């Protein structure tokens, strides 16, 4: 009873946050049980980790697009940095660290830190711009990252890391091992990413985001989003808050990348192109800007959708495009919006009436 009262006492945001946690945990338990029980198709099982990675990507971008209100078209770049650093790290540690879980943890941390550093450095110039110009500059940075990462050669040779750019000039000794091989990327990666790790990463991301949105920083960022000039005029240091959020967002994308990279036996730089950035943006817009639960569901649904459409054979991607357009049109249809609004108003009115009655 007391718990119930406590729950009622919470404001709407907090209630929604707890609902999000609860749903994610429930989904995890159900899916994990299905997997343990062996009642899961290989196709479903194979999608669990990428779905987790995309969910974290969507949450991360939602922090930039939804909470901060700035359009980023280069988010795949941070994912790329995280994926390559994180996966290279787990590959280097393969011999010296037998525990896959620990390696993955270190890989994700390294991926997140590397992406955070890049995010911070990119944020300094980018966040001085606004609107579409900010969007195009993030797109430019995303492409720059892709093109640089695709030209990196890295090897480990008797405990030393060796790097070269553009061509393979590592001069490895026979015992040396090439880790990143330019356009061919990282190969023969042991698949150590797990669904549980993905779940934990989603939970951490949610905690970070909810905590941040509810904090002073979050309120400041949203004030800047809603009215930049007003926020500046009351002395909110917009740049400082924005770069904090941007760096956190980049770190989360990096962590997602590290999880993603460790889930496939090969990793190539061209995967993280503008199409991937846009895909993640679609998750965020479809799920609702600022709506974390929406992002989670949209990321999962849109990752599954093309797979679910395999039955359409040659018409698969056509169907995907049609569904995408249809969803955007339906969800923004003024009539449907009105109907929903009416229902909502009636319900609120009822609740108000009820509330008023019980007060007496």
């Amino acid at each position, binding site marked *: 009873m007391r718990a119930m009262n406590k729950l009622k006492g919470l404001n709407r945001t907090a209630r929604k946050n707890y609902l999000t946690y609860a749903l994610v945990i429930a989904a995890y338990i159900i899916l994990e049980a299905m997997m343990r029980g062996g009642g899961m198709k290989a196709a479903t099982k194979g999608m669990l980790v990428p779905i987790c990675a995309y969910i974290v990507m969507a949450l991360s971008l939602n922090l930039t*697009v939804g909470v901060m209100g700035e*359009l980023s078209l280069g988010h795949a770049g941070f994912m790329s940095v995280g994926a390559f650093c994180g996966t290279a790290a787990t590959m280097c540690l393969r011999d010296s660290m037998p525990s896959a879980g620990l390696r993955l943890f270190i890989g994700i941390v390294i991926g997140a830190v590397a992406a955070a550093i890049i995010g911070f450095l990119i944020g300094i*110039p980018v966040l*001085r*711009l*606004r609107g*579409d*110009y900010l969007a*195009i*500059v993030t*797109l*430019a*940075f995303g*492409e*720059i990252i892709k*093109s*640089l990462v695709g*030209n990196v050669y890295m090897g480990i040779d008797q405990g030393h890391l060796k790097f070269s750019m*553009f061509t393979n000039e590592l001069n490895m000794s026979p015992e040396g091992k090439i880790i990143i091989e330019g356009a061919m990327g990282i190969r023969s990666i042991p698949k150590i990413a797990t669904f549980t790790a993905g779940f934990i990463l989603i939970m951490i991301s949610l905690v970070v985001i909810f905590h941040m949105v509810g904090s002073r920083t979050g309120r400041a960022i949203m004030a800047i989003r809603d009215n*930049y*000039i007003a926020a500046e005029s009351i002395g909110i240091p917009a740049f400082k808050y924005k770069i904090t959020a941007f760096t956190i967002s980049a770190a989360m994308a990096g962590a997602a990348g590290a999880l993603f990279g460790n889930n496939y036996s090969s990793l190539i730089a061209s995967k993280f192109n*503008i199409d991937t950035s*846009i895909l993640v*943006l*679609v998750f965020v*817009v*479809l799920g609702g*800007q600022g709506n974390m639960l929406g992002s989670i569901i949209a990321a999962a649904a849109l990752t599954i959708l093309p797979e679910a459409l395999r039955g359409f054979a*040659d*018409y698969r*991607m*056509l169907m*995907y*495009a*049609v569904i*995408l*357009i249809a969803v*955007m*049109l339906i*969800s*923004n*249809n*003024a009539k449907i919006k009105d109907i929903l609004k009416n229902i909502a108003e009636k319900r609120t009115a009822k609740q108000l009436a009820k509330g008023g009655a019980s007060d007496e």
Partner: protein
Amino acid sequence: MSFLNYLVSGLSLGSVYAIIALGYTMVYGIAKMLNFAHGDVIMVGAYVCFFAFTRYGLNPFISVILAMLVCTCLGIVIEKLAYKPLRAAPSLAVLITAIGVSYLLQNLALLFWSSNPKVFNSIIPNKSLDLGGLTVSYITLFTIAVCIVIMIVLTTFINKTKLGKAMRAVSEDKGAAQLMGIDVNTTISVTFAIGSGLAAIAGVLLCSAYPNLTPTTGSMPGIKAFTAAVFGGIGSIPGAFLGGLMLGVIENLAKAYISTQISDAIVFGVLIIVLLVKPAGLLGKRAQEKV
């Protein structure tokens, strides 16, 4: 090869970007919408022209007109079905719908015309003009000429005609334009129709210069041209022309003097620097923020 020659080859690449960027910037400037499907309308235009000219041997001029007609109709249909219902929606929703339309066009093209590349027979002879060691291809000269003509026509149209004035009014302030009795919806639809017609010309010129035609032909040049439009100041018609040419020149000089491996990175790097120095692009107007 001399610097001058690299410059000219850059201009020829840039002229193609410029003509695509004109369509981008026109739609953005008036409808305030990033039409990511523009590159794919270009692809459709090129296919129509390919079938008319190469396969059925029609007169090149008629083929181009036919491509323009098809693209204009396509633009109107897309606008009516996919963008018009979203007039009141947030701009990001329209952006995502445009991406959906882009996927749709690419996959329809794949089903109808297969993935096998078609080689586009240039409507302009693939010859070069020799100016004492400096070679300029006819396609480049023609593309630049077409760009300039389109630029002049568009500018005159927007500045002098009634519809053009309506377009400017809509781009300044939709609400106020409506109050002044301008039919905002029709104005935006017309903008789309014109933009799509331009896309057909761009498609024909793109494939005349680089004759491979596949369902994804339009997507990369589309993104590059979008970059060019921003570079020159998105919404500005001379800016798109200048941005396109500059982008082509920078790309080719980067390839020639720095490295072909990271020419993309260099192009985008220059773009970033320009936007940091001039946040509204080369010729863009800095919008005054309303307080």
